[in-house]
Structure formats: structure tokens, C-alpha cells
């Protein structure tokens, strides 16, 4: 199958960051390939390796995001498309989807894969919106993906169990990071990535309909306390007393 995987660059959520004057400030400026999108790339590569095909990665982002595209190529994707937007462009899901849809509208990709959400915003909109924009059937939150002729067989994680869904191509699937462990590019992959074709297309996103107006710290939790003691039984007694008398939780 031909796969198009939508990937993007996100700030490293584990790196120190702070809110200053209502703005989010990333102390180290560290950015990474979104973990959910990385799982989508991995899923496409695995299917390509067992059934043949081709993997294109598509990214909407500023110049800096080119390194993320390169990373996916180093993992093993065959070619990349960088929909290049200005450094300071404000983006919402709709603007991203409009650009992706324009590029993928004419695409021959049998299956489009995206992450089920973004690590930084947890929005989880792009996949479903893009599928609808392109008139493709879609399944979200895949934790398993197999190929059966011209169809994908998707195991999706639901609220109370899993559903196995047959999805004929052309289609779109959004991937959970619980699906696989994305490979870390090896040296050969990194070296090969520089020679793979990357098409850079300048794009101007439409004005966002959803605006982020400010950031804040989450409400602070009351400071906790350690329940200590030499005897586990005494600790247990103390904890149960605290739970019933102080926290009124039991």
C-alpha cells in the first residue's frame, strides 16, 4: 500500500517550561517528533516491510520542523513533503487540515495515517477532520493495524473494550502510541535520510478559528504529607485514620 503519514514537531513535554506573562516559555526550546505521529510512521513502515509499498511523510511546520521530517526519513520513510509556513504563524486544527487536504487531495495514498492526538495539545482533531475533508472513512485510536488485501484491519481501543474494524482503502487511521515502539533511527538510516527526496512547498495557513489566548499553571494541589512509621501495621492504621477523619475519603 501507499501510505501518507502526517507528522509534526512538538515541544518536548518533559523539558522545563514556564508561563511568563500568560505565554508558554520553553526553557530549552527543545522540540521533538510527536510521539503519536511517530507511532503512525512506525505502523506504516512495518506494513510496508511486510507487504510492500511506499511511505510518504507530510508535515506542516516552520523551517525548524525540517529536522523532524528528516527524522522520519531516517526511520525509513521514503520521501517527505514539507508544507512550509512562516515561523510565527498561528495554527489551529482547521488551518493544518486545510493545508494537508490541499496536498493530499490529489494524493494516491491508499492509507493516510496520523497520530490519535498531539503530545503537546492532546487535541485529537486533525485525523478525523482530514478524513472528512477528503471524504475518506476513518478509524481513530488504533492500537493494532494489519493489512488484508485492499483493506486495513484496525483494532481500535474504545472506552470499554476493543473493536476490530475492516476499513477499505482509500481510508485514514489515527494511531495510538500504545500500538508500537517507534524505532530509533540507526546510523545507516540517518545517512540515507539526507539523500531522500523532500519537497518543500511554501504555504500560508488561514487565520485560526480557535485561538489560544493565555496559558496558566494548573491549580496547585494542597501539599501532601508522608505517613511514616517503623511498623507497617501502625502506618496502615494512621493512613486509614487520615483517610476517614481528615480526608473523609472512606
Amino acid at each position, binding site marked *: 500500500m501507499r501510505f501518507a503519514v502526517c507528522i509534526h514537531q512538538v515541544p518536548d513535554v518533559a523539558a522545563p517550561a514556564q508561563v511568563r506573562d500568560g505565554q508558554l516559555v520553553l526553557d530549552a*526550546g527543545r522540540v521533538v517528533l510527536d510521539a503519536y505521529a511517530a507511532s503512525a510512521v512506525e505502523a506504516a513502515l512495518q506494513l510496508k516491510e511486510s507487504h510492500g509499498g511506499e511511505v510518504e511523510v507530510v508535515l506542516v511546520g516552520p523551517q525548524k520542523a525540517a529536522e523532524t521530517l528528516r527524522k522520519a526519513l531516517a526511520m525509513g520513510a521514503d520521501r517527505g513533503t514539507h508544507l512550509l509556513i512562516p515561523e510565527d504563524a498561528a495554527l489551529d486544527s482547521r488551518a493544518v487540515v486545510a493545508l494537508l487536504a490541499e496536498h493530499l487531495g490529489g494524493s494516491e495514498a491508499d492509507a493516510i495515517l496520523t497520530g490519535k492526538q498531539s503530545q503537546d495539545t492532546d487535541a485529537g482533531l486533525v485525523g478525523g477532520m482530514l478524513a472528512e475533508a477528503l471524504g475518506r472513512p476513518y478509524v481513530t485510536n488504533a492500537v493494532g493495524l494489519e493489512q488484508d488485501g485492499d483493506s486495513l484491519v484496525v483494532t481500535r481501543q474504545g472506552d470499554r473494550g476493543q473493536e476490530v474494524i475492516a476499513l477499505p482503502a482509500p481510508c485514514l487511521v489515527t494511531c495510538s502510541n500504545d500500538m508500537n515502539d517507534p524505532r530509533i533511527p*540507526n546510523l545507516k538510516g540517518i545517512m540515507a535520510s539526507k*539523500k531522500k527526496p523532500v519537497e518543500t512547498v511554501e504555504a500560508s495557513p488561514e487565520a485560526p478559528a480557535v485561538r489560544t489566548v493565555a496559558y496558566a499553571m494548573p491549580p496547585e494541589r494542597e501539599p501532601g504529607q508522608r505517613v511514616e512509621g517503623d511498623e507497617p501495621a501502625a502506618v496502615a492504621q494512621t493512613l486509614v485514620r487520615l483517610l476517614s477523619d481528615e480526608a473523609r475519603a472512606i
Partner: protein
Amino acid sequence: MDEQFDCIIVGGGIAGLSAAMTLARAGATFLLVERGEWSGAKNVSGGVLWGTDLHRLVPNYWEEEDGGWERFVNHRRLTLMDAGGAFSLDFKSDHFDAPPYTGVTVLRSRFDAWLAGKVDEAIAASPKPDESFLATDILVESVIVDESGAATGIRAGGDEFHARCVILAEGVNNLLARQVGLEKEYVPADHVAVGVKEVIRLGRETVEDRFQLRGRSGLTNEFVGAATDGIDGGGFLYTNTESLSVGLVIGMAALRESGRTPYDLLNAFKAHPAVADMVRGGETVEYSAKVVSTGDIRGVPREVYMDGLMIAGEAAHLVLNAGRAIQGMDYAMRSGILAAETALEAVEAGDTSSAQLQRYRQRLDESYVMQDMKAFQGAVHLLHSPHMTGALPRMACDFGREFFTVDNEPTRKATAILRDVRKQHIGLVDFLKLGASAARHL
């Protein structure tokens, strides 16, 4: 053989990146391999990059608005502390104010990544942009050494990669230098120390107000004495753009003997009244610990080159800590540059044998790196003498307490105070020896 690079560099710290930048600028092909997820991910420094070599690597680096560095140093302080006091030597001068600065504070996870970005730009601008690589998240497992004993490449992830020469810039934990037999198998504990450090965020305004900074100017403060509770070592506090780097470097042997943990000692240091006032209200955003060489020249490997291979930076234990400053990053930078220059020359000559690469040793010897390391060995030992962390700081503080006290009692002259505090803390002979030693070595 797939493809042969001019050079393979192991380690994307300061030494490795400096070598890479030098090679990229000269249009050589190279592969730099860093095991961290990104350059800087695992690197720890107190935080001052001394000297002006950065300007050589990234000309006019200070003009960049969002560069990788934090503040330039124009205010320096050395503090002798006892349990409750702090006696400082303090110097500030506008002669430090103009670029190229002679010292900038850095946070490694940011600085190394920034420098790697600059190297990437240099690769892209080079004549063979597709033939040089900065590869992260990959561990180099071993150096390939042929039958003749010459290094010809590396093994990583089960694959082999070849080059005309290899530069080991793997830092203090130099397993590969050991593998090729240049590093002595056993590094005695007094050649290494343990560094612990916290980054404490205060916010830009607070840092500037609290430390009387202006624009991007910054302060460095070194501490001896109660900083390490009298254990061999010292403390530091450096100002970053909006945070402080606060830490200790503690002799490994002395630490073991004391039975204390570095974390413990760091907490005690931060709680010292003089330090507590500086870090007050800050939020610890990063904690790290790492081994660091002490600057004892006996720690330097048997040789820093062999057929097809050179060792740069702290992998060769090129560090000097003679009381004035910890110099490791600048040594890494200079030695990385010198190794790369030697590599370029060797590749050009078509000869990367040790006969050719011994030029690296020569270059190092001619540079300030080896000259200072040799000249200040006495100072290194002096710094580790027990009086430096014990009697001397206590003497200074006792002196300070009396000298600076103005009460409604008859006041003694300074010399009288000095004589008394000296008697309390150290024998006359030891004191004179210490003085003589300081005069000779500093």
C-alpha cells in the same frame, strides 16, 4: 567498505562539536556520533565557558538574539566560608563588558544543542552537504582497530563505519580511550571529583536585581570551606539569563571517606546563610550529577594520539581547576579544534599515522591548555590541601567578623586580629608553608 569519511568523531559534547565545526568549515566529510537523545541531553557543567574560542567557532555569536549562551561574566567573586560567615574577594570591571567576552555562562542542554545547530548549518553550507552527519541517540560501541594497530573506524548498532581518522571526544567516562589502550585502566580516585548541580529558576528580573546585573552581564561566584563542609572541593554559583547554576565539585576520595552524599552536601550548601539569600524563592528545575577530572596532570592518558586516532576534551582529562575557575569546556573546545586541524592536515597529506598525528600533541603543548595545566599543577595540589577547605576559610571569616564589627568597645588593629585568628586555626609553620606555596603556584 561502504564509504570512508575523512573523520569520525565520537561524542557530541563541546570537544566533538568544536572538532566538527572545524571540519565542516574546511569542507571535510565526517560523521559525528552522540549517544544522547540530542547534543547536550546528558551533559553537565557548572556553566562558565571561558576564553574567546567560541568567537572563533561562531563568529560574533553574541549578535544572535536567541543564541545558546546565557550571560557574559563581568563580575567575579571568590568566597571563603565557615558555618555562618562568608568572606569574599570581589572584582567587577567594565573591561569585561565588550565582546568578544572572555567568559559566558551556559546551560549545556541548550548550549550544546545550539552549537550542534550551528554545525548543521556549516555542513549545509559546505561543498558536500550530504556527506557529513551529526547523528544522535546512537552509542558507539567500539573503535575498529586493524592488525597494524591503527584505528580505522567505529562500530555502532552492529554496523561498521570507516574513516581516515577517529577523534574520541567522549568525555570523562572514556571507555573507548580505554579500549584502544591509551587511557590507563585504573584512574585513581584523586584524579576525579564528583560534580553536582542544580539549576534554580528565579526569573530574569529577580536575577538581575538580586545580582546587580545589567543587560546580559553576569556574576560568577566560587566558594571554598564550609561550602563542602570542609570536605575537599568547592562550590559555585553562576547567573544564567533567568536562573542560577548552583553546585559543588567534591573530591571523590574525600567524599567516600566522609560517607556523605553529594545531594546532602548540596542541600547544606544551599542552606548556608550567604547562599540561601541568593537562591531564595527559586524553583529547582534541573538536578544533575557527574564525574569531573580534577586537573591533576597525572590523570591525562599515556598519550592523546595513536595511529588513526586522537583524543580531545575531557576524554583526555583536559581540565584545570586551580582555584581561579573550572576550565573544562574551553579546554574541550580548543583541543577539539586542534585535533580537527591536525586531522585536516593529515587527510590532506594522506597520512594519518601516529607520526603525523603527533602534531596534535605538539599543538596542544604549544597552546595555553597544556601550558596552563603544567604551570598550575602546584596550585591544583594546593587547592586540595586540607587547609584550603578548613583552616583558611575559618580564619578569614573570624577575621572578617571582628574586623567588620563596630561596637562600643575599643577596636583592635587588623594585624592583631590576624595574628590571633591565625593562632586559633593553624600552626605558624603550616601557615608560612601555605603562603609560600600560594606565592609560588598562583
